[in-house]
């Protein structure tokens, strides 16, 4: 049994999605989604391809900004503050809400440079400080032991799974309150996937995690709560154990028992 997330140490990272709708041109990607993501713990977003999981995830750090024909309605609040308010600086927001993508995307630079990129953006220049930050972040991403002797090497030489954990370390170096992951293990083999899942299990204690996954077993393994989306609508959001064993909605049941999607 997973530990009770309400006893978690996390204080920040409450994400409140209220009547959130998104359109790309004429197509509605999300319709009036309301969802509360409480600090600490892991929330999984599941649903068939094209149902809007990525769109919802990318709404939380405003990565959709700049997409052609984007319109939205409703509110998303992070610890009470509307992240789409005119006064919100999206680059400051993204330092608080980190993101890891489906395909690992390290910069073509050294391992060390990758991890410290965000910190150097914020003006950290002291080499000792940067190295300490890198070690701390790489340890949190369970990558330190594997790369501690090759910090100066190109990040592109790491294995796929290591690259993905490097991307997690890079996001963690900003010390975010929320970490968004969009199918982070879908390009990895089972062993590398397991390492990522273990990592999320450890991280959930001090950062709010939202993960999109196509893999229902993975959702069941790593998450405390699961939200099921279908055609841009939130069908059901509940404790993971309850959603997978006794869903309230017939459509949820149909999906998790593999009858569509």
């Amino acid at each position, binding site marked *: 049994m997973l530990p009770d997330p309400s006893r978690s140490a996390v204080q920040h990272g409450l994400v409140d999605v209220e009547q959130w709708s998104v359109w790309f041109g004429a197509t509605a990607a999300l319709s009036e989604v309301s969802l509360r993501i409480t600090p600490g713990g892991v929330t999984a977003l599941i649903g068939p391809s094209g149902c809007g999981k990525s769109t919802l995830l990318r709404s939380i750090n405003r*990565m959709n900004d700049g997409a052609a024909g984007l319109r939205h309605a409703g509110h998303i609040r992070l610890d009470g503050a509307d992240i789409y308010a005119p006064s919100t600086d999206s680059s400051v927001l993204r330092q608080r809400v*980190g993101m890891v993508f489906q395909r690992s*995307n*390290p910069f*073509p630079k050294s391992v060390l440079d990758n991890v410290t990129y*965000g910190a150097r*953006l914020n003006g950290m220049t002291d080499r000792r400080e940067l190295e300490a930050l890198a070690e701390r972040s790489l340890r949190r991403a369970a990558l330190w032991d594997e790369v501690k002797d090759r910090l100066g090497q190109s990040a592109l030489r790491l294995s796929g799974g290591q690259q993905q954990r490097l991307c997690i370390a890079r996001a963690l170096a*900003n010390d975010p309150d929320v970490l968004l992951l969009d199918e982070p293990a879908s390009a990895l083999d089972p062993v590398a996937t397991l390492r990522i899942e273990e990592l999320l299990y450890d991280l959930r204690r001090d950062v709010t995690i939202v993960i999109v996954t196509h893999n229902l077993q993975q959702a069941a393994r790593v998450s405390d709560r699961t939200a099921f989306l279908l055609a841009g609508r939130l069908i059901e959001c509940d404790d993971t154990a309850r959603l997978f064993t006794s869903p309230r909605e017939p459509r949820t049941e149909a999906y998790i028992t593999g009858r569509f999607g």
Partner: protein
Amino acid sequence: MSALAAPSRVQRTERMARRRRMGSFMTVVVWCAALLSVVPLILIAAHLIIGGARVLSPTFFTALPAPPGVSGGGVANGVAGTLVLLGIASVIGMPIGLGAGLYLAEHGRTRLATIVRYLSDVLSGLPSIVVGIFAWELIVRPSGQFSALAGGFALGMIMIPLVARATEEMVRLVPVALREAALALGFTRWRSSLQIVLRTALPGIVTAALVAVARVAGETAPLLFTAFGTPFWSLRLDRPIAALPLQIYNYATSPYDDWRAQAWGGALVLIALVLVISIIARRVTRSRFGAATGGARGD
């Protein structure tokens, strides 16, 4: 013969044979065309080397042009002048071209971008002598004299669209995933453009910029009434300045035999200069692909 009727065995082999004959004939045709296409290059190169080597000597690079009848003149001022002109052209053409290209790549769908892209295409299609007239109107006429500045300005105008389009293409090649990685870390858009996108695309842009320099190095028409040329040693930007293409033009159209020989020598030097720039450009390109294949590994 009906199209639906299955062709007999005989018809089929006959058709095959016809196709094979046609195939070998076409192979010969394209082979000849390929050969013909390199003939001019070989002829020019041979001519240049035979004609130019005669006058090439160490003094050819260190001496100033000699009056007709006096042997042993050189193109020292022309080489220096061409380098100065290319320098001015780069100072004007590269930053503007780079900025415009970056803008086109990053904001390519806006109305302004469409207009800029169209105008830059128009500019790159403009005959270079027209650019020369423009520089004359803008700089030579108001200032009352031919100048290196005017010549460099004209060459820079020609460079802008070349650099802009190349930059746009190179920047577009930078994977979206890398931009998103930077944005997701809290980079503002322009910072990710400068720090991630431009840096990743830089080798390609440098290559393209060098190709643009090589391209304008041989331009003559826009210099005729801007840089104007001079037989003397001058590096002043506000005075007429010598340039290799201008010297070649003057020598080649002169009635004196030793001047025409000098034209061949100048042409050889100019080609060598362009060649060196191109080789540097290829080196930069190669090191880019070398880094990409040597450093990356698939997952």
